[in-house]
């Protein structure tokens, strides 16, 4: 199972923080799996990332993605378990690991009073390269990430998307084997996001392994060769986006029952759920917020039957929609929650707080 060309391998990685450190908005609800006043942020994560793939960590804020990433990049001490990156043990050979990885945090951290090019040259020199070695390398990066237009302007003048591309260039200047990207597109407008996706795909074509975290479904789906879905510090699903979605066979149907009458919606969903669950063609069903979400093998034949059934019982339907399963359906199936409201649901773990400002953007 441990293939030779795995560039990242971890076994049973764990990390917890003292409970008092879990402060601020996300930390509120006391944390899961806390023992002795500690909050477990990462609870037994085992990963194998193959050379040259784009590997993603998908999960809501506070799921432990950033904490895992920070352990793999030598920024946080590993509490228990082992991690090997680019052939070196992260805990025992942090220096060797550092020279072989690039890391782009959510914050970026380019010097605003310096130009993009100056930032790149300093970064390269900190990795031991000489100015002469760096000049062509920096120029190539400037072209690769479309920075040419503003590379010699001060970073303070950059737009969000431009700055993000510079941040990525900073992570690449020493030609690392693996590039770690923590929430690379958070806070970017859709156009800049799509543009950045193109650039990340370009990196894979050049043979760089990319390890990224995201809480955007589309990003994980479009960008990653393989991904892990993480929740409450644990891996809940793993595979290619396609394989993951195939786990949720059939079509997803969402019936919205919220009514004009006060409170009727909830009662509608309450009434509809057991009714629909009894139908033979309904494979799985969840109900909340006046919405019933269910999975069927064939949406085309199930839809009219569903409508007729609800109509005959006098349960008013507000809207009904059908879709192919998404990664959100995978997440929902594994955790019982939707990732789409993950931004507000992040408070449930309170794990990624303390040492890391996870919500930076917007």
């Amino acid at each position, binding site marked *: 199972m441990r293939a030779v060309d795995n560039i990242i391998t971890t076994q049973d990685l764990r990390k917890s923080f003292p409970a008092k450190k879990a402060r601020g908005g996300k930390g509120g609800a006391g944390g899961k799996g806390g023992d002795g006043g500690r909050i477990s942020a990462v609870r037994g994560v085992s990963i194998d990332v193959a050379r040259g793939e784009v590997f993603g960590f998908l999960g809501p804020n506070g799921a432990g993605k950033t904490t895992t990433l920070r352990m793999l990049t030598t920024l946080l001490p590993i509490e228990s378990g082992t991690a090997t990156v680019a052939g070196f043990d992260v805990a025992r050979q942090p220096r060797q690991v550092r020279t072989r990885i690039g890391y782009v945090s959510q914050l970026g951290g380019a010097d605003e009073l310096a130009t993009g090019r100056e930032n790149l040259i300093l970064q390269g020199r900190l*990795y031991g390269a000489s100015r002469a070695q760096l000049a062509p390398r920096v120029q190539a990066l400037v072209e690769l990430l479309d920075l040419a237009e503003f590379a010699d302007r001060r970073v303070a003048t950059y737009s969000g998307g431009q700055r993000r591309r510079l941040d990525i260039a900073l992570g690449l200047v020493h030609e690392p084997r693996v590039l770690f990207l923590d929430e690379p597109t958070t806070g970017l407008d859709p156009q800049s996001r799509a543009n950045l996706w193109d650039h990340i795909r370009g990196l894979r074509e050049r043979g760089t392994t990319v390890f990224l975290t995201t809480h955007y479904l589309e990003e994980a789906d479009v960008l990653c060769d393989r991904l892990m879905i993480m929740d409450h510090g644990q891996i809940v699903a793993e595979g290619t986006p396609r394989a993951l979605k195939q786990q949720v066979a059939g079509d997803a149907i969402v019936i919205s029952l919220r009514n004009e009458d006060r409170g009727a919606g909830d009662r509608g969903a309450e009434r509809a759920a057991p009714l629909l669950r009894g139908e033979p063609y309904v494979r799985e069903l969840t109900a909340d917020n006046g919405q019933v979400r269910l999975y069927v093998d064939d949406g085309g034949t199930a839809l009219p039957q569903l409508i007729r059934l609800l109509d005959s019982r006098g349960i008013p339907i507000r809207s009904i929609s059908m879709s192919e399963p998404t990664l959100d359906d995978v997440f929902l199936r594994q955790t019982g929650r939707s990732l789409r409201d993950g931004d507000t649901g992040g408070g449930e773990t309170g794990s990624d707080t303390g040492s890391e400002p996870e919500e930076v953007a917007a």
Partner: protein
Amino acid sequence: MKPARDIGLLFQRYAIQLLRNPVWLIVGFSTPILYLVLFMPLLKHAVGGVGLSSGQVVNLFLPGILSLLAFASGIGLGFNTIFELKAGVIERFRVTPASRLAILTGPILATMMMMFVFDAVVVAVGFGVGFSVYWAGLAVLAVLLALLMTTVAAFSVATALITKDISGFAAIVNGLNLPVLLLAGVLLPISLGPTWMRVIAHFNPLYYLVEASRVLAGGTLAATAVWQAFAVLVPLCALVLAWATGVFRRAVA
């Protein structure tokens, strides 16, 4: 030497940041001048020295300004640390193989360089109003100023890394400022104070610098105050630097 190269790179980086910040430059240059211009006339009367010439007053007062500058330059560095922490700069450096000591000392050395520039301006302006310049004494004083500034700066950076937010850090700095400055005799000689004050002053590192600075600026090298200052500041500086590097190494940032 790898650490030396890293220190050089991060020194250069920080110096460039300072020089490109016009507000910082203006305030940096004007503050010591303002001290001289605004305090000297007051002091001329306060010390009861009705008969003192402005040269004598500036001889008494200018070494204190230099000490004050060393303290202020050092203590301010933590604010920058918090800014860089929030902006992700420190994390960006920490994932590189750059020496941890260099990440800490690069900015300290750049700040020191700027401090000496300001010191030179103060001495030049002081010379204009009658300050007597003793080069040997000033050279030894420069070493002591550098020691104190490094100590205070390392303390400030480590405190910033521990508190991590600007309001907590600012509270600590403001809380320290007044007692440290008063109990050092920077503006008024501590000998004017009661006994208990003079006793407490001996626990204040800045006190030793101020005492030594008056003697050294007067051209005396072999004085008790000078030896005492070295005896206190050399080990203290080493101790605080070691502690601050430890704080940096522990992955708390």
